[in-house]
């Protein structure tokens, strides 16, 4: 038994061990990802949903090439029902082809659903971890500032952002990101606080782990599951919120369309031409659902307790 160990390893050794630890971390991360992928692959609903989403994204990207018409051209009788010659899904009240508009609208809707949620989650994970783990006045400052953001409705926030920038997709994305951060941060903070009280955190500290190690290897991975699930369910919701902002003239400008705007435009003629609302509505529901399934699959895949061997 060595008693000289209390002096700690030499400078060289310590540097080597730090590099070693980094490599070790990377290795563990890669292995965890591989394992998680295997677990994810077993969840049929999640895999199906992921494939579906990939297809939807591809179609949206390829919209200029595969769309039958220009989404802003009137090509058929106003409110033509589905199955009409040339327009499979019918036409909206301006006679524009619904299929073409759905294909083009997907580009904007997916962008508005996905980008702000991911960006807000990244920001919120950082803020929430800092607030929840460090606590004290830093916690107070972060959370009270976010409370101020809470006080402004999303729409007001968007008006402010639109006042600074031009109305458009970027405005919607920025506004929604800012609007989402307080919600996700609250969840991250709460989960962080509860994870922080787990005995394995104290055990890790008793084992000599420093704050960076504890946050990245103990708190973060144990905190992430509910956040991922919450974030993925938000994606669908944000598509709708984004179209709400566009409806107010803060986002996408007519005659461009996203799915949400198509729904709200069709609302006026719901009785005469229900298909103008039904198809974009259906697409939103199915895509949102797909994101939720992927989220559930991700959560299970990242949790070793739920991994089926």
């Amino acid at each position, binding site marked *: 038994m060595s008693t000289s160990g209390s002096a700690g390893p030499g400078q060289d050794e*310590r540097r080597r061990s730090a590099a070693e630890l980094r490599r070790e971390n990377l290795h563990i991360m890669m292995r965890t990802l591989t394992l998680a992928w295997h677990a994810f692959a077993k969840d049929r609903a999640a895999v199906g949903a992921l494939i579906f989403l990939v297809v939807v994204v591809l179609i949206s990207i390829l919209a200029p090439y595969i769309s039958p018409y220009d989404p802003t051209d009137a090509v058929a009788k106003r409110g033509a029902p589905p199955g009409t010659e040339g327009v499979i899904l019918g036409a909206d009240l301006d006679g524009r082809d619904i299929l073409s508009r759905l294909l083009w609208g997907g580009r904007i809707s997916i962008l508005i659903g996905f980008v702000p949620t991911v960006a807000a989650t990244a920001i919120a994970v950082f803020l929430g971890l800092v607030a929840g783990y460090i606590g004290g006045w830093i916690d107070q400052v972060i959370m009270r500032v976010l409370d101020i953001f809470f006080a402004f409705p999303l729409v007001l926030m968007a008006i402010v952002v639109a006042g600074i920038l031009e109305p458009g997709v970027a405005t919607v994305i920025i506004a929604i990101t800012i609007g989402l951060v307080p919600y996700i941060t609250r969840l991250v903070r709460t989960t962080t606080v509860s994870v922080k009280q787990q*005995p394995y955190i104290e055990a890790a500290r008793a084992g*000599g782990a420093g704050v960076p190690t504890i946050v990245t290897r103990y708190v973060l991975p144990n905190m992430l599951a509910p956040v991922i699930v919450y974030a993925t369910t938000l994606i669908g919701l944000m598509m709708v919120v984004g179209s709400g902002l566009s409806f107010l003239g803060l986002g996408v400008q007519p005659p461009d369309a996203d799915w949400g705007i198509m729904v709200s435009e069709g609302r006026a003629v719901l009785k005469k031409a229900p298909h103008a609302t039904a198809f974009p509505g259906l697409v939103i529901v199915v895509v949102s659902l797909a994101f939720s399934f992927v989220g559930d699959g991700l959560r299970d895949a990242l949790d070793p307790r739920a991994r089926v061997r």
Partner: protein
Amino acid sequence: METVLKVEKLETQFKLRTGVLKAVDGISFEVEAGRVLCIVGESGSGKSVTAQSIMRLIDPPGRIVAGKIWYRNLDLLALSESAMEKLRGDRIGMIFQDPMTSLNPVFTIGEQIVETIVAHQGVKKKEARARAVELLRLVGIAEPERRLNDYPHQYSGGMRQRVLIAIAIACEPDLLIADEPTTALDVTIQAQILKLLADVQKQLQSAMILITHDLGVVSAMADEVLVMYAGRMVEYGDVATIFRHPRHPYTVGLLDSIIKLSDNRDSELRSISGLPPVPIDPPPGCAFRDRCSRAIAICGEQDPQPYNTKTGSIVLCHVIAQEETDERQVSA
């Protein structure tokens, strides 16, 4: 034998809205290499806070307000946090009460052992892994090479406690602190874990602090015993002295409450009536006086001071101190 840990008049307090909770109030003891000190006491008597104070794991609103903790010639309370991190898990190993939740659920057992070894000893991962296998074998996990890749939820409670012991001894610490290591386990496993602890402690010749409320565990494991009550030390001495000649009325009551084989079914279970006080802004005097059958006037006025008894233990009790002083005067 060299003294590994020396605690002098340790005081740890928690500032609460209702007052100052004196969780640990003037505890002193020392542990030598190769020896086992058992800290006994009821729930809330400050045993775990003592252990956390030694590890410097007390978080606000808690604070160590007075006293000294010497690890060999290092003043632990004066060390920087990063120096303390190097000691924790390396020179001082700790084993916790609840093995079910003391392991990180998202990493494999192997990764968690390797992490500790790599962090403290700066060895290559491969070496650390080989050492992890060796450690798992040492603590009695069958097929260690395979079980290394399992996650904590695939281990039973007893096995997880074995793993936690393996992590605690990974760097061959010279001080082991076990905080009620068998409380969450069932009785048959308890004996195995205690034996394992005793074995590794012998092998490493480390000093060990074992916190428990089980007097059976004390008699099986301890070299020295420290009895705590409401954050204060009550009696301190070697195990034979304390068990044969308990002096403090609390220790006497504690030992008397053990069920003996000679008790028949009809005999009543003995207990100390009343409950221990919560030491929030405690009034002066002995904390045990309200439950003590021998209490006298001074017990409610002054804090008892450590007194070396003729039987060899240190007792904090006015009654005992007076008795012995009187005896000495008579014989002199």
